[in-house]
């Protein structure tokens, strides 16, 4: 059984190749690849019971669209009665009271949940080295990072531990690990997928999205999880189009822009040449490629780190040791209880971002940082809306380099933040982005990012399909 085979190709064989046997095979693979540290909890027996139920429904002809799909869930998403640790000591052993909306929808579509995946603490990080439960390793090369913060979900799909997985993307946390692990990762438009049940890092940036071994797999998951949710006021009421039917792989006449600011000297030769090959291939297939400009690109990292940390400082206030989660053993009074519980419960990167976010919202600094960054965010959004007047989508590298070595950037937060330099702008602008793997010159995969107009996931999925070799 080829466990990296896309769901789309084996689903027709589901009658002969049961969901149960798939699930057992994935569970076996999880055991074999424990060194990856991709999972924080595995549902074993429960997943098999669910798989049997799906097989039954399939036999009766009433199975949902995701019957046969075995899915791993980033541990930042709530599943009722399951641990939801967010990769943090402060939530160790915390069991959720309810299901996230995406979980409800996937279950209703007959997906089988196999476990919850490791991640950078509270989704803050680009290498998965910030997990309180140890780093995740890149299945392609275990000396290297899988990317972050959804490193466990990316590694799980890349290693065949699950058919697809859910990640979350606040500044690149789906697309960057997808690139580093050599799989597809999609961040939908802000508001396309309900955030209810996603433990917030930065509420105006966070989106849930799928990883898969093919564009069609992520499209199938998106089809199920997208759409308005009354529990999330920021979720859009726009109808959800049929993604698969838009994915012909035909890019004739599709206008693709190359933002010139993204092709600076920071980019490695390997990635540049890989991109060139992809662009040539799309041209050959009828796409119209041109250069565009996103003039405010140089401000994206600074803007992102001001706004996202500001929101995080408030979002993470609820982890105070009062009602749930970690509480210090030794505190003489309330103030000490707060200070010690949070100092002992959070990791270094989370504390760094809470402090930064608290600072930029403080009296006397708000206007200089937060308010100004909000204005720059609008300028960056405007850059994209201008560009999309001329082109249908943008093609960029997903990351400035391929998977780096464990520990390589841990002592230099700024270098680590720059790993997201090509991905954060999509979160600032609220637009969708997908990372598609391409073979690099070396053995490590390179990610190509396609960015689209708001709510136009169909176009970027179609270009991804073309890049992945569909309709050749």
């Amino acid at each position, binding site marked *: 059984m080829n466990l990296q085979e896309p769901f789309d190709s084996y689903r027709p064989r589901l009658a002969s190749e049961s969901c149960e046997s798939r699930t057992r095979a994935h569970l076996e693979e999880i055991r074999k690849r424990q060194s990856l540290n991709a999972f924080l909890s595995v549902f074993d027996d429960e997943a098999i019971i669910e798989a049997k139920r799906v097989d039954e429904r399939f036999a009766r002809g009433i199975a949902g669209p995701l019957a046969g799909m075995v899915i791993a869930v980033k541990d930042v998403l709530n599943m009722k009665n399951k641990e939801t640790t967010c990769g943090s000591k402060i939530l160790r052993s915390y069991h959720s*009271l309810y299901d996230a909306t995406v979980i409800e929808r996937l279950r209703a579509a007959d997906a089988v949940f196999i476990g919850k995946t490791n991640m950078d603490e509270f989704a803050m990080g680009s290498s998965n080295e910030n997990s309180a439960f140890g780093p995740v390793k890149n299945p392609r090369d275990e000396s290297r990072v899988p990317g972050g913060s959804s490193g466990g979900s990316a590694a799980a799909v890349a290693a065949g531990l699950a058919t697809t997985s859910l990640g979350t993307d606040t500044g690149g946390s789906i697309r960057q690990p997808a690139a580093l692990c050599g799989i597809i990762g999609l961040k939908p438009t802000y508001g396309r997928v309900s955030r209810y049940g996603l433990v917030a890092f930065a509420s105006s940036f966070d989106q849930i999205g799928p990883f898969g071994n093919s564009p069609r797999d992520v499209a199938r998951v998106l089809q199920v999880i997208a759409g308005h949710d009354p529990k999330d006021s*920021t979720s859009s009421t726009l109808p959800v189009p049929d993604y698969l039917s838009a994915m012909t792989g035909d890019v004739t006449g599709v206008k693709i822009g190359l933002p010139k600011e993204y092709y600076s000297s920071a980019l490695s030769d390997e990635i540049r040449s890989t991109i060139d090959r992809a662009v040539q291939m799309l041209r050959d297939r009828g796409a119209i490629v041109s250069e565009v400009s996103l003039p405010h690109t140089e401000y994206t990292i600074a803007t992102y780190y001001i706004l996202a940390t500001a929101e995080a400082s*408030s979002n993470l206030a609820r*982890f105070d040791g009062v009602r749930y989660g970690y509480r210090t053993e030794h505190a003489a009074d309330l103030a000490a209880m707060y200070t010690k519980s949070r100092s002992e419960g959070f990791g270094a990167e989370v504390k760094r971002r809470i402090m930064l976010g608290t600072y930029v*919202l403080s009296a006397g600094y708000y206007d200089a940082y937060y308010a100004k960054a909000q204005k720059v965010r609008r300028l960056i959004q405007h850059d994209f809306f201008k560009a999309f007047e001329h082109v249908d989508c943008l093609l960029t590298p997903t990351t400035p380099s391929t998977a780096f070595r464990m520990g390589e950037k841990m002592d230099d937060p700024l270098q680590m933040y720059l790993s997201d330099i090509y991905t954060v702008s999509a979160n600032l602008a609220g637009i969708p982005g997908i990372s598609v793997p391409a073979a690099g010159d070396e053995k490590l995969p390179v990610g190509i990012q396609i960015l689209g107009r708001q709510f136009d996931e169909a176009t970027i999925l179609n270009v991804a399909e073309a890049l992945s070799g569909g309709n050749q």
Partner: protein
Amino acid sequence: MNSTFEPVIGLEVHAQLLTKSKAFCGCTTQFGNDPNANTCPVCLGMPGVLPVLNKSVVEFAIKMGLATNCTIAPKSIFARKNYFYPDLPKGYQISQYDQPICKDGWLDVELKDGSVKHIGITRIHIEEDAGKSIHDQDPDTLVDVNRCGVPLIEIVSEPDIRSPHEAHQYLSIIKQLVTYLGICDGNMEEGSLRCDANISIRPKGREQFGTKTEVKNMNSFRNVERALEYEINRQIGLLEDGGTVVQETLLWDADKNIALPMRSKEEAHDYRYFPDPDLVPVLVDQKWISEIAATLPELPEARRNRFIGGYHLPLYDATILTQEKSLADYFEKAVALLAQKNDEGYKSVSNWTMTEVLRLMNDLHVSIDQCVVTPDRLAAMVNLISEGVISGKIGKEVFAEMLKSLDEPKVIVERLGLVQVSDTSAIEKIVDEIIARSQAQVAQYRAGKMQIFGYFVGETMKAMKGKANPKIVNEILKSKLV
């Protein structure tokens, strides 16, 4: 109060809204349930939950905005007010900051000298209440989050108030309006209406404001007046002794009659307000405002004027009757049941309501809705008087009996034999007897001493145990004494 200084006061009034469910989740707002029974993952601030705005909270806020002559903002936004406290599960309170739902209103407030004071309203904004920390039931502090997420509006006045009396009158109108609108029960003692004050003083005639202090925890109308009085005198004393006022927050202690500073640690908050990214802007169009305006009940001032114009009640009666919506409703329910709808009847119901009914409420500490003399019983009794079945004097006896028994007035009158005697022959018989045994008084009367007439009325009534129709008694006496 020293006459060379003038106080400058602004009030912040919090009104807990009577919506069925909380501001951002579906939990009930019902009071008195077990601790932490009215909760769900959202108001418990569990990881990953999101708030969804309850539309009726916006409607309630707009009602108050319209009643206080505010501009309703076409777009307002929610902000997070960040601080740590155990009864605040999210670590922030959802409130409104620089873009509130209502702005720039005013109220005209009547003062005891009859003058009218114009008081500006800066803003009205929506926010959620926090839970309650309970310190006295366990060695540990216990937290009840039932109240957490219950909607509030905060009504912020301009610093236009110049005396504790003005503050009292302003607060009375706020209470009157929220109860008339049915958006808050207006109970200060139970905390559904809360008032904080910003107070400063300045030499009379100066434009510039002095340093202000904030006084909190004044949980009754009386406390507001007393606390303001106290704080104004304290500030004047400080300045007169050559000192300065320090900007601080004080807590009113109603038992000791003093306001004490909060520990500086407790007030040193930088709330780090910023727009709540989980909520979308509240958009209000003119159509919605008109729809809400159409549902507004008649407000106190209009109702008072109608009581004067429609029922021809004196200003005094109309003012008292419309002070509280429930009392005005009581009056109008009774009036609607009068057999004869005329000014005499209206005034009679007004008199009974202002005297006996209000006294009853005060004596028994019950609300008008709990009053056993319901509007229909009161009306039935007034009808018996106007129909001549009983006299007004007997009416008091019937009223007293209505407190003891749930019988209708008519049944009480019959049961106790209180029916007024209007039978001329029966009265004539008694009058003849009295004249026969009162020859001396008859002679005096006939000699022109008209005052003695009262003696005959009194004797007749006494003989008939007060049940004789006084009008007929008068007529018969006059004809027989000529």
